[in-house]
C-alpha cells in the first residue's frame, strides 16, 4: 500500500476531496501546515516596521491507498488542485507496510476504505 501525501493550497481542499471521492477514496486525513518553498512569503507591517512572513499556510492531505490506486490518486489530485501558479505544492508517495482499522481490527487493503 502507498501513502500519498499532498501539500496543497488551503482553498483547494474541497476540490481535492471531491477528486478523491470520484476515485472511490473515501478516507483521508488533513493537517494544517506551513510551507516554505519557491513561492515568496509576503510582507507584513506592524507599528511602522516591515517584516517578511516566510511560511505560508498550506494544507497537508494524507491518504493511504492500495498500490494500484496510487497512480490514479496522484493524477487525480494534480488535476484537481493545480492552479498553475507557483506554490501549488507537492505530492509525495511512500510505502506503507500495513493498515489497521481500529474499530474492527481488519488489516491490509480491506482496512483502508
Amino acid at each position, binding site marked *: 500500500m502507498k501513502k500519498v501525501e499532498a501539500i496543497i493550497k488551503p482553498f483547494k481542499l474541497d476540490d481535492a476531496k471531491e477528486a478523491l471521492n470520484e476515485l472511490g477514496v473515501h478516507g483521508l486525513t488533513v493537517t494544517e501546515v506551513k510551507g516554505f518553498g519557491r513561492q515568496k512569503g509576503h510582507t507584513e507591517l506592524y*507599528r*511602522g*516596521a516591515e517584516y517578511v512572513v516566510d511560511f505560508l499556510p498550506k494544507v497537508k492531505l494524507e491518504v493511504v491507498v492500495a498500490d494500484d490506486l496510487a497512480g490514479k490518486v496522484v493524477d487525480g489530485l494534480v488535476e484537481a488542485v493545480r492552479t498553475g501558479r507557483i506554490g501549488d505544492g507537492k505530492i509525495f508517495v511512500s510505502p506503507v507496510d500495513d493498515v489497521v482499522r481500529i474499530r474492527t481490527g481488519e488489516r491490509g487493503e480491506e482496512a483502508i476504505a
Partner: protein
Amino acid sequence: MLRKLGWLLPAVALTVPAFAGAEEAAGVSDAMFTVNNLWILLAAALVFIMHLGFATLECGLTQSKNTVNILFKNTFIVCIGILTYAFVGFNLMYPGDFQLIPGVLGFAGFGLDAGAEGVTQAYADGAYTYWADFIFQGMFAATCCTIVSGAVAERIKLGPFLVFCTFFVAIIYTIAGSWKWGGGWLDALGFYDFAGSTLVHSVGGWAALVGAWMLGPRIGKFKNGQTHPIPGSNLPLAAIGVFLLWLGWFGFNGGSVLSADAAGVSYVFVTTSLAAAAGGVAASLTSWVKFGKPDLSMALNGILAGLVGITAGADVISINASMLVGLIAGVLVFFSVLFFDKIQIDDPVGALSVHLVCGIFGTLAVGIWGTTADGADMPLMPQIIGILAYAVFTLICSFALFSGIKAVMGLRVSAEEETDGLDFGEHGMHAYDLPKVSMSGAGEDR
C-alpha cells in the same frame, strides 16, 4: 484638577475661556451639590474603566504567552493603587497645611478621615464630598503605573515590578502631583496642567522610559540594527482597550472640571473628542502615506495620542486648536514609535510615544494655544519649567527605585523564561485554550 480647598496655597486662577465656572459660587443648592458630586463619582467610575482599557490594550499588543502576566499586573495595580492611595497617597498629594518642605513635600497623615465637614458643602464649596474626592483621585493614581506596565511588558519580573509600582504610585507620583494639584510650588509658578498630560502621563512615561531602558529590548526585537516586529496577539482586544480608554477619558478630563458645571464639562467633552478623533485620523493617514497601507495599531495609538495631548489644556484651548493638537499628536506618535525603535528602546505597546511624548507636547500646547478666562494668552515658560521639573524628579526617583530593586531582586526574567513566556514562568498558567480554525465545508472557496 486643582482642588479648590480654602486652606490650600493661593493658586493662579486659570479657567475655561468664554464662560465662568459655576464652581466659583460660595454656597450652592443641595441639588447642585448632589449633581456635582454625582458627576465626580461617575467620572471616577469612568476612570476606573480605563484600567480595563489599559489591560486589554496591553494584552492585545503583546504575545499570547504573556497575557496572564499582563492581566495580573493590571489587576493588581488597580487594587494596590487604591489601597496605597488610601493609606498615604491622598495625604501626600493633597497635604493641605501639613507642609514639611512648603510647596514641595507635605503629608497630612495616614489613612482617610472625612472629618466633620467632609460630606458637607463646606469641604469643597459644594462641588464634591471628601469621599468623592478621594475615589476620583485614587482611580487616577493607579493609571500612571499602568503606563509603565506597557513599556516593560514581556520581560520584567513580576515581584520587582509590583514593588516598583507600589512605591511609585504611593510616593513618587503623589509627591509630584502635590507640586501642582496639591497647590505646591509649580502651581504657584503658574504651571498649568488641567487633567494631567504631565502629572499623570509624562510622569508615567518617564518611569516607563527608565524601565524600558534598564531592561533592554525583548529577545529578537532588534537584530543587526534592524527592527523585527513582534506582532500583537489579539488586535480586537487592543481596539476594545482604546475605545474604553476614550470612554474613560470623558471622566478623566470631564471629571477634572471638578464639578458638573454645564459649560465647563460640555466644553471639555468636545475638545477631548475632537482631539481624539483628529489624532486617530492623523496617525492613520500618516501610516497610509508612509507605508501604502493604514496601520490599525497606529490608528489606535493616534487616538490615545490625541487624548493625552489635549489633557493638559482641554479647558483652555479653543475648538480649532483642540483639533490641531490632536492632529499634531497623531503625527507625532507615529514618528515617535519609529524613533524609539531606531534608538532600540523596546516599548511593546507604544507607551513612551503616547504618554511621554504626547504628554510633553500637550503641556506645551497650553503655552502655545491656551487662553485664560479673560482672553489672555497663557505663558509658555511655566509649562517648560514644569515639564523639566517633572522630568528630572521622575527620572531620578524611578532610576533610584528601579536600581535598588534590581540590586535586591533583579529586574529581568531569564532568557529561557522569556522564550517560554511569563505566563508559565511567573504564574504557571496559560491564557488561551481555543480551538483551531475549523476546515468546514463552507470554506472551500475561501
